[in-house]
């Protein structure tokens, strides 16, 4: 049986982690490559790097990070943030990432999903979705709207429609981030995750709101998610990946236990 994946997310700016990270066991790590290796050895099933570098010139720094990560870890990892063209995607994949993630660039230019999928295969193309709960309307029948720029700009696009459209265009996976839940550590947006996951046939990674292992158990069962993104709950030493996997395993959720 397929295991549910636990995926730590690392934010990188100018080649460095955006925040100092203190793992359980008081291991301080500031270099994203060291941190990736730490999570690899800890049993993470996959990693997500999100590049929040503002300037396009600094992109080469991220590519160097990707190359160094690819030499040290032997599990899949994806890279997202600021990828606007197929050439941007190609550079990241050639540097050694398994997958690329497109988010706001895909909302404004859906063709990038189709082009990337055709060039590199659907399994390489992850659609990142930032979603906000809104009143149900004719335009937003699901009550979930696509937003960009961290939720500051509403796009007038229904999230469920967009997920299905992206699948049709060739996205291989969806990383579904609830802006409402993000940063709260109060749990994932269950209704949103279950809604999207049950209406697409590609895997859905739940994102936003994880604070304790119970939240992962919830979203991987009732939320119908195939994988769960985590950040602060392991970055700041509250839990290790192994702690979370033990918890899930004890509750009958299949996770990878040998690494």
């Amino acid at each position, binding site marked *: 049986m*397929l295991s549910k994946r636990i995926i730590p997310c690392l934010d990188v700016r100018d080649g460095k982690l955006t925040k100092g990270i203190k793992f359980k066991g008081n291991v301080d790590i500031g270099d994203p490559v060291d941190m990736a290796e730490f999570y690899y050895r800890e049993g993470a099933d996959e990693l997500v790097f999100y590049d929040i570098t503002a300037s396009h010139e600094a992109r080469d720094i991220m590519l160097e990070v990707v190359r160094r990560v690819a030499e040290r870890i*032997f*599990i899949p990892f994806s890279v997202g943030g600021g990828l606007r063209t197929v050439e941007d995607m190609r550079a990241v994949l050639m540097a*050694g990432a*398994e997958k690329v993630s497109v988010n706001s660039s895909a909302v404004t230019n859906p063709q990038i999903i189709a082009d990337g999928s055709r060039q590199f295969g659907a399994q390489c193309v992850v659609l990142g979705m930032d979603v906000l709960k809104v009143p149900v309307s004719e335009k937003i029948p699901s009550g979930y709207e696509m937003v960009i720029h961290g939720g500051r700009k509403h796009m007038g696009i229904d999230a469920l429609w967009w997920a299905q459209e992206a699948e049709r265009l060739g996205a291989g996976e969806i990383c579904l981030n609830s802006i409402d839940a993000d940063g709260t550590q109060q749990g994932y947006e269950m209704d949103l995750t279950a809604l999207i996951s049950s209406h697409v046939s590609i*895997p859905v990674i739940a994102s936003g709101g994880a604070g304790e292992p119970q939240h992962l158990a919830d979203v991987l069962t009732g939320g119908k998610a195939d994988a769960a993104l985590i950040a602060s709950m392991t970055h700041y030493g509250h839990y290790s990946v192994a702690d979370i996997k033990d918890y899930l395993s004890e509750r009958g959720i299949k996770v990878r236990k040998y690494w």
Partner: protein
Amino acid sequence: MIAIIDYDAGNLTSVERALRSLGADCAISRDPEFIAQAARVILPGVGRAGAGMASLRRLGLDRVLADTVAQGKPFLGICFGTQIIFDYSEEDLTDCLGLMPGKVVRFPVEHRDQAGEPLKVPHMGWNGVDWKINHPVFADIPDEAEFYFVHSYYLQPASEDSVVGTTDYGFPFVSAVAKGSLVAVQFHPEKSGRPGLKLLENFLAWDGKEGGDAL
């Protein structure tokens, strides 16, 4: 020297990096002469059957790979590189290399597990392998080890004799096969952490002699 076959099927550098981490001398190549000289050959890949076979034929590699197997040189297929060694694939209705008898078929569109819950296609993520025989390439890999899979099509070997392992996704499908000097896996050992690296290390040390007894 190990030749990693380049046939525009992507995903070659991760195989190269994994082999390098094991200290192996390897090179990505599409040169028939170089590949013919190599001591071992790996056919990796992420791609589509139609385009993959067209590339192999255009580059003249279909014959080189057949010779490799005929000579008894150790040969490893990975993921799409495994599917394409069979006779035929339902993907793009493609005649493939025919190095392993059997065909490749798609998971059902409305795929469900035994309890009736819908299963996503592609089969993407970590899953275990139920090993059927002992084989030197799969030695010292614990039963609880899992491997990273990404695929929508699966193997249907003509003979049970070639099946090394199966994996459960709604039903057991064949995830590892072996015949003579040829071994092939549906998962990605280069992205499967320690057990995957162990498999590659075993392949590097293997003399190509047929393995093992039934478990």
